[in-house]
Each structure stands twice: as structure tokens, then as C-alpha cells.
């Protein structure tokens, strides 16, 4: 399954230096603070955090501790009240909205708890949705890549209706969708929380197979099995990073 990371985007948008493979994967957060209301206690306060390229990071913590907020911040969907978020020396908090959208499209693959596929179109069309954000036409290469991605995640029925897929298959289609532009960063928020144990296992396998020297995977999860497979675990509580452990999951097991 590591073949997935070899699927590089044909004619990838090299115009954006931020998406440059060589520099991707290094996240540096400084002095970050997020408050939803003025003068209220921050929902998230993170003096410093660094994540290296190729790391597999699990984020855990009780409900309301700010895990999702962190994902939204580092993907540029949410602007912090204070602080910097640098990916490869680019402070995304300083990007214009349009530039941030473009950067996210090329650099980040998002996986959600509830898949959020479009039932009315085929799995293949679902995987191709991000391609419709940028251009009018979808190239044959991109289409082929979407096909290959579906094969790789184990959902080869490109023409079958999306709503007929099992939940586990739907999450794997969502993962394939996140991979269409071969992003160097994968962000997953509770990717297995809506799946039964067997499907969770397959989805987690698929997700972790994406990791590699050039791809960083960051996943929020309540699922012990998922967290245990991460090389680095960040524990949050009440908006603060309370634990940061790096280990070898193999040793742990």
C-alpha cells in the first residue's frame, strides 16, 4: 500500500512554492492562541509545537479540549487570535484567503469522521470533486489517478453508486478523495469514530499506509487502536498540550 505515496500528481502545480515536495512537512507553531470570545479564556493555547516531515502524529484528549480546533488552525480554516503557524517557512496566518484555499487544496488532504461524500454521484466522481475546484475540465490523467486511488484503497467499483457502499468503504473513498492532489499533509478528525471495529481496522490501515518520508499524517482520535499506531502522541486537555510522547509503536505492542 506504500505505493500510494508514489502516485505523484501529473503536472502538479509547481507554481506554488508552498506545495514544493522538498520543503513540505515541517510545521512550526509559535505563541498560538485561539479565543472564540474577546477576553474569554483561550480555547487553545500552544506556546510552541513542531512537527517534522514524515511524522505520524496522533492527537488525543477529552471532548472539548481543542483537538479539532487545532486541525482547523493548521489547515488555515480558522484564524488564530494570536501566533504563527509556519509550514515550510510560510506563515499561513498571513496568507490571503484565496492563497490559503489554494495552499490547502494542494497541501492538505482532509478526512472527516462522517466521510461527507456526495451520495448522488459515483465514488469516482467523489474522488474527482477536488479537481473541479481549480479547472473546468478534468484531464484524463487525473481521472486515471482517481481510478488508481480507488483501487489502492480497495474500492474498485468506480461506477457503483456511493450510497450503496458500506460505511468502511465510504471512508476509504473519502481517503482517496483526500489524496487526489497527492498532498504532503493528511489531516484526519476521528476517521474511525463512525465505523465498526472491522471497518475501523481497514480504514486505519489505509490511513497509516499513506505515511512516508514525504507525507505527514496527523489524526485526532478517541480510538486507542488508532492512537497506539502513531509514532508521536499529543495529549490535550482544556486547550493545553499536556503530553507529547514519541515512541516506536512496534516496541510498545
Amino acid at each position, binding site marked *: 500500500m506504500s505505493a500510494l505515496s508514489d502516485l505523484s500528481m501529473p503536472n502538479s502545480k509547481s507554481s506554488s512554492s508552498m506545495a514544493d515536495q522538498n520543503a513540505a512537512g515541517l510545521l512550526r507553531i509559535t505563541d498560538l492562541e485561539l479565543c472564540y470570545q474577546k477576553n474569554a479564556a483561550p480555547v487553545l493555547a500552544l506556546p510552541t509545537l513542531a512537527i517534522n516531515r514524515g511524522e505520524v502524529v496522533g492527537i488525543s484528549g477529552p471532548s472539548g479540549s481543542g483537538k*479539532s480546533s487545532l486541525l*482547523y488552525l493548521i*489547515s488555515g*480554516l*480558522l484564524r488564530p487570535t494570536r501566533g504563527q503557524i509556519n509550514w515550510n517557512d510560510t506563515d499561513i496566518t498571513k496568507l490571503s*484567503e*484565496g492563497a490559503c*484555499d*489554494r495552499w*490547502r*487544496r*494542494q497541501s*492538505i488532504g*482532509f478526512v*472527516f*469522521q*462522517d466521510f*461527507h461524500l*456526495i*451520495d*448522488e*454521484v459515483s465514488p469516482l*466522481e467523489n474522488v*474527482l*470533486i*477536488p479537481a*473541479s*475546484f*481549480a*479547472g*473546468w*475540465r478534468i484531464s484524463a490523467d487525473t481521472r486515471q489517478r482517481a481510478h488508481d486511488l480507488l483501487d489502492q484503497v480497495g474500492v474498485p467499483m468506480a461506477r457503483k453508486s456511493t450510497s450503496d457502499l458500506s460505511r468502511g468503504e465510504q471512508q476509504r473513498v473519502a481517503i482517496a*478523495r*483526500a489524496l487526489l*492532489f497527492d498532498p504532503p499533509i493528511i489531516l484526519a478528525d476521528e476517521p474511525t469514530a463512525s465505523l465498526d471495529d472491522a471497518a475501523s481496522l481497514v480504514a486505519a490501515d489505509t490511513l497509516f499506509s499513506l505515511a512516508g518520508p514525504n507525507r505527514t499524517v496527523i489524526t485526532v482520535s478517541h480510538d486507542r487502536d488508532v492512537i497506539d499506531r502513531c509514532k508521536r502522541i499529543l495529549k490535550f486537555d482544556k486547550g493545553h498540550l499536556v503530553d507529547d510522547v514519541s515512541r516506536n509503536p512496534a516496541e510498545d505492542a
Partner: protein
Amino acid sequence: MNPFPIVMASLRRHWIMNILFVLLIAVAVAIGVGITAQERALRQGSAQAADKFDILIAAPGSHTEIVMNTIFLQHSAVNLLDGQYWASLIDDPRVKIAAPLAFGDSWQDHSIVGSTPQFVDYLSDGLATGHVFENIEQAVIGAAVPLEIGDEFEPVHGQGAEAELEHHHHGVHLEVVGKMNPTGTPWDSAIIVAVEQVWDIHALPTGHDEDDHDHEHDDATEHHDEHEDHDHGETAEHHDEEHEHDHEVMDHIGPPFDADALPGVPALVVRPKSVAAAYTLRSDFRTEHSTAFFPAEVLVEMYRLLGNAGSVMRAMALGSQGLVVAAILAAILALMQLYRKQFAVLRALGAPRSYVFGAIWSYVSILVVIGAIGGLGLGWLVAQSVSAIFTAETGMALQATISRSELSLAGGFILIGLILATVPAFLLYRRPVVEALRNS
């Protein structure tokens, strides 16, 4: 950026609601289109019907009533115009054709009008088949009269239900000798005979100075004035005698007439030689005992009333369109709540805000455009069927068409729809992404 995959998915997702939207829009547009198309058809149809009637001369009275009686053959009792007027017009150098229009009889639902061969020829631009009537036992039929050349029929006094009820036969049989070309006017269902025939059947003199034609006729209500001048004798064997009589006069219809012996007629139609002649004729015949006018004047007045009625209906149509737009907008805004999450996800996947805007705007716009085009077709269909019913009822050919005003109506609706489509698009465009993502 190509938001159409999302647009198509949205159209399919709530397809029942979308079909309902389209139907609502179509009906709203169809009402407006139908009204304007129908109104124009009425104008064109009536203008065409009046085309061959340049000047009408009649006894003083309502011009509208005279137009209804003559051009549209919707008969009502009218005063008669003295016979002298026709006599004076026959030799008038300003006149090309001057013909009487004498009505009162019918066969089934078809009016029988007494006139002259020239007028029949003018009205029909030459006959389709056969020839004009040459004596008072012959008749020419309009294109829509279900008779054939050689057929005989029996005129009945009066019109429609009244005629059916009274069933007053004159005891005369007329033969169809010619059929007019279709004119697209109520005259297509008329039967035209020599005016002498109408006079004769009602026991009036025929202007030919031939002895005593004074039969008693107790039922010719419109002709009471004339009746008083004749003696009321020999009631008996009226029918038999009439038959004998026909054979005496059938060899001669039309001028020269003996002016003093010409009975009155309900109206005269005059075709002048020039526009100037039309105006002098009109003023010359506006006397104490006669009125003269261009039917076009009456039509203009009718159009004004029609236009007023049309304006009211159009205002109502506009109101209903406004309601439909408001209802659809409200429904779409409610629907947008369901779409919030989907668009937040797309934004997380890298879609720019403009993609969200474009998708929603296109979605609403497609509903509006399909609905408006459907409404144009529906309105046309409605106007077609209303026109067809109207034509069947009156014989006046109405051709409802889609023209500039209907197109601009639908176009205006589309334009407003496209502008209003920006409202839900903008609202969702502004929506914070994260908030929607959280509300699973």
C-alpha cells in the same frame, strides 16, 4: 472552477422539491405569457376581422354595437337606416363599393346576411368555389359553413337559441352556389344572400319598383318602422304565394334601384376610393338620421379597454410571480441550511469561496431558467387552447404567438431570478466554514 458536479448533485438530491420549484415558476410565468399572448391575439384577430370594413354607416346608435352586429356578427336589435342612403352612395364618385348588411335570419348557428355580390367578392377576394348569388334563391357560404355547393337550406328567423325556440321558418329554400375563401373572421361562418332576398322574405319591397310586395310579416321585430308604411292585408297562404313570387323577381338583383322603394337596412359598409374620400364620406354621413365611422376607431377604444383589463390581469400575474419568487427564495434559504455542511466540507477540501457561490447561484439559476422556459411553453399552450376555443365560438381566427413581449417577460423573470439567486449564494458564501463543520 467547475461547480457543476455539485450543482447536478444538488438538483438530484431534492428532486421532488426542485420539480415543484420549476413547476411553480413555470405556472407563474405562464400566467403572464398567456395573458399577453392572448391579448395580442385578440387585437390581431379583431383588426383582421375589421380589415374589409372601411366605413360603417348606420342609424344613430352605439358604434360598438354596430361593429358587434356587422363585423363580429353578434346580433342585437338595431334601428334601420333609411333606404335613401344606400341609393345615394351607389352613384357617389368617392365610393368603390357600398353594400348593405341586412341580418336577422339564420340557418343553424350561422347568420344569414343580406348584401351584394360585389361585397362578397371583396370580402373573400374572389370565391373559393362556385359563383356569387344571381337571384334571391341563391346563397354564398363562408368557408366554415358545413354545406356544399348545390345544398339547399331553410333560413329561420332570428338567431341561435331564439331561433331554435321559436322555430319560425320562412318556408323558403335557398341553394348554395358559392363558397368564400377562408378569411379568419366571424364571416367564415356566415351565409350571404342578396339583400333583396332578406327584404323579400320579410315581405318588404326590394327596391325594384315591381308591383305589390307587401306581404304581412308579423315577426320581423327589427323592421317595425318599415312595416307601418305597408298595409297589413293578406295573411293567409303567405308561403305559397311567396314561392310564386320568387320566380318573378329572381332574374334581377342589384342596381338600378328605385330609391323611393328601397327599404331600410341595419347598416351599410362602404369602401372608399381614397383616404380623403373616406374622411369626407364619414363627415357627410354624420347626420341627424345616420352615423358614419371607421371601425378602427371603435377597435382602438376596445383595445384600450382590453388593455386596461390586461393591465389588471398582468398586475395580478406579476403579484403571483412575486409570491412564487418569495416562496421559492424562502424554501431555498431553508434548503441551504441542509447544504451548509456540504459546502463547509468542500471548503476544507480546498474549494474557494467563489466555488460555493457559483454552485448555489448556478443551482438556483438553473431552476429559474428551466421554469421560465417551461412557463413560456406552457403560456403558449394555454393561449393556443384559449384561442382555439375562442375561434370555435366566434369564428374569429385567433393566432396566439410567442413574440417579443412574451420573450421579454420570461427574460425579465429570468433576470430577476438570476439576481435573486445571488442572495442564498451570498449567504452561504459568507458562512464560517468551521462552525458548519463542527455541527455534525
